[in-house]
């Protein structure tokens, strides 16, 4: 059944005799395509196609015949077709009817211009999306205010579920990461400070870095990667399956049902995770000091209580709810922007994580400046 496509072209005076035989199928199409194109470029006075020997014909084979015959006829060649079996005639007619004139090629644009246009489009897009994010934040704050006035409307089950997912389940990974970073900071810090004979200040470095910055920042980045992305994917696939629209038609407010429980859960969970991060980071430092610097844990803790003031701890902790707000808002915002395809869910999830981490770091810088100005 896989006999090859045969194409015999014979010249007779002014015209061509073309004998088509064998199996003209999609598998054999590549073999005769180039020869047929060459034939289409010729201008004989007449052409006669003989299809008597054709055993099998599929749409690809029929297309090739229609294309060649059509091109020759368009060039003013007198075309005769003979020996068409009835079963092939129906297919040829179907294919001829389905052919469309080729689309005009895309207009060519200067590459430099296209790059410029791309930059402009992206910039305008970022601006527009930022405005929408601001608008969305406004709606969320308004809904949050309304719900806090009537706490009965808060979805407690959903809230607890998200606190478990985003908070409790993140404890091991956040503890591990901050522990390792705490160990690294202590190790590198003591190495450098020893050259100045100031290795006792390693604990100051650790306490200062972790309580003010690393604890909260590492926790926030992990949560953005873990939970911000999950929020986008969850809400996004709900959007893709029109669940969010269904919610609206049933009189449920998606902000109240989907966004608020996630937002409040993160605002509660992230400060707690920050405390976990602070403790694990300091534990990492303690282990390294004990093993590498011959500092007993008792001495370490005594030094730590001397240098770690409550204001450092609070300066770190106070940032956590703000970071949580940013992460949850962006995660939900991007989820609600999904446009119905799986690809859109993937793109929005990436955007959600990138934007959340970016804004967390920008916000952290703003806090740092603020704390310096107020002398905290």
């Amino acid at each position, binding site marked *: 059944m896989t006999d090859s496509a045969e194409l015999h072209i014979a010249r007779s005076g002014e015209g061509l005799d073309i004998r088509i035989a064998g199996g003209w199928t*999609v598998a054999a199409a590549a073999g005769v395509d180039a020869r047929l194109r060459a034939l289409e470029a010729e201008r004989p006075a007449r052409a006669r196609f003989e299809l008597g020997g054709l055993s099998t014909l599929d*749409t690809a084979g029929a297309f090739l015949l229609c294309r060649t015959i059509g091109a020759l006829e368009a060039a003013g060649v007198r075309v005769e077709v003979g020996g068409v079996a009835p079963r092939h005639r*129906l297919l040829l007619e179907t294919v001829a009817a389905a*052919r*469309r004139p080729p*689309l005009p090629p895309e207009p060519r644009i200067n590459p430099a211009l296209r790059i410029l246009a791309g930059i402009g489009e992206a910039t305008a897009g970022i601006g527009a999306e930022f405005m929408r994010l601001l608008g969305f934040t406004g709606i969320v704050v308004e809904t949050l205010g309304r719900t806090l006035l009537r706490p009965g409307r808060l979805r407690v089950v959903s809230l607890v579920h998200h606190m478990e997912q985003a908070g409790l389940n993140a404890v091991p990974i956040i503890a591990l990461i901050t522990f390792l970073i705490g160990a690294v900071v202590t190790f590198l810090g003591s190495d450098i400070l020893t050259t100045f004979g100031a290795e006792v200040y390693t604990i100051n470095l650790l306490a200062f870095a972790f309580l003010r910055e690393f604890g909260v920042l590492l926790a926030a980045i992990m949560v953005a990667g873990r939970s911000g992305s999950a929020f986008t994917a969850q809400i996004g696939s709900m959007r893709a399956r029109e669940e969010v629209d269904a919610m609206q038609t049933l009189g449920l407010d998606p902000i109240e049902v989907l966004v608020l429980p996630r937002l409040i859960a993160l605002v509660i969970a992230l400060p707690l995770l920050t405390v976990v991060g602070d403790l694990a980071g300091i534990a990492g430092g303690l282990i390294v000091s004990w093993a590498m610097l011959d500092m007993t844990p008792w001495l370490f803790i005594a030094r730590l209580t001397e240098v770690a003031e409550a204001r450092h701890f609070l300066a770190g902790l106070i940032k956590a709810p703000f970071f949580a707000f940013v992460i949850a808002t962006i995660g939900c915002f991007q989820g609600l922007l999904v446009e119905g395809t799986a690809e859109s869910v993937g793109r929005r999830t990436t955007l959600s994580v990138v934007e959340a981490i970016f804004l967390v770091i920008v916000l952290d810088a703003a806090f740092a400046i603020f704390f310096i100005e107020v002398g905290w």
Partner: protein
Amino acid sequence: MAGEDVIISVRGLRNQFGPQVVHDGLDLDVRRGEVIGIVGGSGTGKSVLLRSIVGLNRPVAGRIEVFGQDLMALDEPARRRQEQRWGVLFQDGALFSSLTVTENVQVPMREHLDLPPRLMDELAALKIGLVGLPAEAGGKLPGQLSGGMRKRAGLARALGLDPEIVFLDEPTAGLDPIGAAAFDDLIRRLQGSLGLTVFMVTHDLDSLYAICDRIAVLAEKRVIVSGTIDELIAFDHPWVRDYFQGPRGQAAAARRDRGRGGGS
């Protein structure tokens, strides 16, 4: 019966999901070149049957042969070759959402054949035309198409390699009556000109009357009857009677008779 060219043969099929038995001792024959319609109430496992035949669902027991070969017993290359000989249209088209319609149609050609790019473009445009989509649809992403257009594009992809069997899962569900009738006509025309065997799961009574040579009814976990529509109407089983003698069945039959009367 034995003399006829059986292209799909299902014997003693049993499908089970947990404690729920979907098929038990199901037998079915599909002959080469026919259009067979599979009907049955919701949850009788019509789509599961289709998925079992194309190898997406491994049955608990039973034997399924397509082109005389048991798919589950074939090695990987033989199985790939087998799969090129059929095309499947899933319920919502199942187009790859990151590819344009043209690219979707070209997926099987790229994967299995070595064709010049220009010819592939032309063939994709032809398939898109064959299923009745406008030429501009080729450059669009599936997300930009309506449900009916996605279905047509899915059919264009299923026809990409000119298969011998086409499996259709509810091809006319969700189409407007004009679109559904056009789809029926399209399948009938392609079937006639390409000599396709069509295995169609459907709820659409008009489709059954318009294009099916034979109909198999799934009930009680097996095929309780298969035959021409007139044979089924005469068959005595409560579900079959309700299905074909109910108001919608009567209306579809009347439409068919009127169509015949007008034609002769």
